[in-house]
């Protein structure tokens, strides 16, 4: 599903954010990406949806080398990916349903299609009763659910998420994590960068630890510890 071959990213200021990363993620995997702040987790994730490109190395997503992909094809790559970031990134002037529909609008789906799939996605995250509300009327956990609904409304192959529980309390974090597990159970590959060691330790999924831009641990059924 995802393969990184010798991926190195050196920023213009000389910082080596990623250093010779080799990693394979199989379809249906649930991978936690852990490591201290500044270890390169976000850069790693940004590479996967071509928000950034490596200085060296290759990245294959669903069999295609996305580092060689022309800019004009990037939108089509992203339509197969669901992306959930730490800050909720919702449009404040649009309702919950409109926010979720956004991912379908950009691909030119019909009104009927949009209405059905938005309803489905909102039901999955348990927010269909709040579809007409605005993001500011929702709690943080609910806002993150809306983002998740938007990310899964296209039935993506891969869900990439960067600290989705970073701004949420432990109870709500657990609920959000439960949601990701359900999505994963339906076959979507999930890659999640997180600092939440309680959840990582509890769930015992594959854990990849990044320190100083290098993978120092890649363990199935692993724990958070990387020292």
């Amino acid at each position: 599903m995802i393969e990184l071959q010798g991926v190195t990213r050196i920023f213009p200021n000389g910082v080596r954010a990623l250093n010779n990363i080799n990693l394979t993620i199989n379809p249906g995997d649930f991978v936690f990406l852990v490591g201290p702040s500044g270890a390169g987790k976000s850069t790693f994730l940004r590479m996967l949806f071509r928000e950034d490109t490596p200085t060296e190395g290759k990245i294959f997503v669903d069999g295609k080398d996305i580092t060689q992909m022309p800019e004009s094809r990037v939108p089509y790559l992203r339509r197969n990916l669901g992306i959930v970031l730490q800050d909720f990134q919702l449009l404040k002037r649009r309702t919950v349903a409109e926010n979720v529909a956004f991912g379908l609008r950009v691909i030119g789906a019909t009104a009927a299609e949009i209405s059905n799939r938005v309803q489905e996605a909102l039901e999955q995250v348990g927010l269909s009763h709040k579809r007409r509300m605005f993001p500011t009327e929702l709690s943080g956990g609910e806002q993150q659910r809306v983002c998740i609904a938007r990310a899964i409304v296209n039935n993506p192959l891969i869900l990439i998420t960067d600290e989705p529980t970073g701004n949420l309390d432990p109870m709500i974090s657990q609920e959000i994590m439960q949601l990701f597990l359900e999505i994963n159970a339906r076959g979507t590959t999930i890659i999640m960068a997180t600092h939440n060691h309680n959840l990582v330790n509890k769930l015992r999924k594959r854990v990849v630890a990044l320190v100083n831009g290098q993978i120092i641990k890649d363990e199935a059924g692993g724990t958070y510890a990387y020292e």
Partner: protein
Amino acid sequence: MSLANLSFFVTEAGTNMRRSAMMAFITIATIGIALVMMGAFLLTTMNLESFLEQMQAEALVTAYLKQGFAITDAKTLSLRLTSLTEIEDIEVVTPEQAARELFSSPDDQQLLQIGITQDSNPLPTTLRIRIKSGNQLESLLEKLKSEPMIDNISYGEDLFQQFHGMSQLLWLISLIIVIMLGLASLFIVYNTVRLTLFMRREEIVIMKLVGATNWFVRGPFLVEGFIQGLVGSLLAIIILFAAYRFMLAKLVELIPFFTANVGFDQLFKLSAKLLMMGIVLGISGSLLSLRDISKFSKSAPEGV
């Protein structure tokens, strides 16, 4: 582009214009004002030009025939020439007529009787041609020159050259003004769109994140540019024609024999041109500010 996309663009454009009504107003007003000014210059130029053409048309073209042709030959030629589109009417002047006109005073009449008889009349047979409009003079001259019977043509060359030069200068000036006004308004439209673009930055970032193409992101802005150009130019046309009618009424009052030289069909053509210009201004202003839209895709600055 699918119908779903188009309807999305139109609703988005409508919502965005309502949210940033001030920006939309500035764009529409800029386009409107620029077009009123352009239109005023074009109308003035068109009026002056048609006035010049009228004056030119009143000038006669005189074609002198070579000696040795019978008067019937001249008549045949004139009949043939009448079919030319440039010619309003044509009159054959025999040497006798010419002589009589030339020596029309009583004293001259005597001279005529003494000096010039039918056989010794040195005046050539001439064709007096009135043209339909001044701008057809040149093509008519070309055709007349190729006629073997015609020796010489006179048409008030100096006056014609002057008029020609004046109308060319007029068009040059109005062209420069139109281009300058166009560029100035393009610049303002560009900047206002740029501002709304930054106001909607977050939205664009999210659009790109969920897989919108650059053209999809541009869509609503382009529809907005189109609508603003359309509204701006319609307003300009209304204002311009109201002002034009008012001015004409005033002029008729002031100058009793004044008649407007620009007809309805020309006004219609001018409106169509202004409408086109407005739409082009609106769309190109938007396109220009959206050319680097891919830079807006970055959800976080480089190196974070």
